[in-house]
């Protein structure tokens, strides 16, 4: 695959892009979704699962970490995304079993990183925090 935009200057507006919307407010927006939200087929996340995510996120995710962008997934889960310089990271959360899939792609090198996490375990949140700090810190 070729590298799109490689012949064009990349706009650098900040060290990394972060959302300014508080996490709880964004999760509340997702509560308004109904089944069928994605072209008639997307499953809406349940209120109980969003309650758990909001509670756990606030307890486990330090305020000094880059705030993620938050999107629903077609399967009724939630995906967190971060743009950290040339790195695009995502955490796809399956709310049914509270597992998550980390994916990071460095657009400049094509290097990928994947990892499975269990968000019921503090160790997984610790790993996520360390990794995000490393990626954000590498931007200087």
């Amino acid at each position: 695959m070729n590298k799109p935009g490689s012949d064009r200057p990349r706009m650098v507006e900040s060290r990394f892009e972060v959302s300014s919307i508080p996490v709880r407010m964004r999760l509340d927006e997702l509560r308004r979704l109904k089944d069928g939200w994605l072209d008639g087929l997307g499953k809406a996340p349940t209120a109980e699962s969003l309650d758990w995510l909001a509670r756990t996120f606030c307890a486990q995710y330090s305020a000094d970490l880059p705030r993620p962008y938050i999107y629903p997934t077609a399967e009724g889960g939630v995906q967190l995304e971060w743009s950290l310089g040339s790195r695009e990271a995502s955490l796809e959360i399956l709310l049914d079993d509270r597992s998550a899939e980390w994916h990071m792609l460095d657009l400049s090198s094509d290097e990928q990183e994947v990892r499975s996490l269990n968000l019921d375990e503090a160790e997984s949140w610790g790993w996520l925090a360390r990794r995000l700090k490393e990626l954000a810190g590498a931007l200087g």
Partner: protein
Amino acid sequence: MTDETLLLRQINPSFVQEDKVSSQAFRPTPKDRRKLSVYDGDLITAERAWAHFTSQGFRSAGVLAVAVAECPREQRVVRSSPEHFPEHAEIDFQDFTLNECKRIAERLRDAAKLRGWRFQIEPQ
């Protein structure tokens, strides 16, 4: 269709937060059956594609675009599929693993972001 042809992708409003588009917008949805539905930009404008899409009852915050040349080159994955409607085309993800699909989606989202909205109902 040439390497320069723009493939127009409808962006669901829930995949937009503060004008930042989720990479999921460039991965096939369950409806797409591992084929990402797009409009052939040689045959229809972004605004008319948006009007066609939303007239079917689907929601779209606007239209982003990638060029055929920005799609995976390993296999012939971009093709016209006029059996749906004349301007319909698709990017076929069937031969890729889940993580490859995620990588491709990130690349397509990045290319589309650099190009900017081709049509947008209102800035988010």
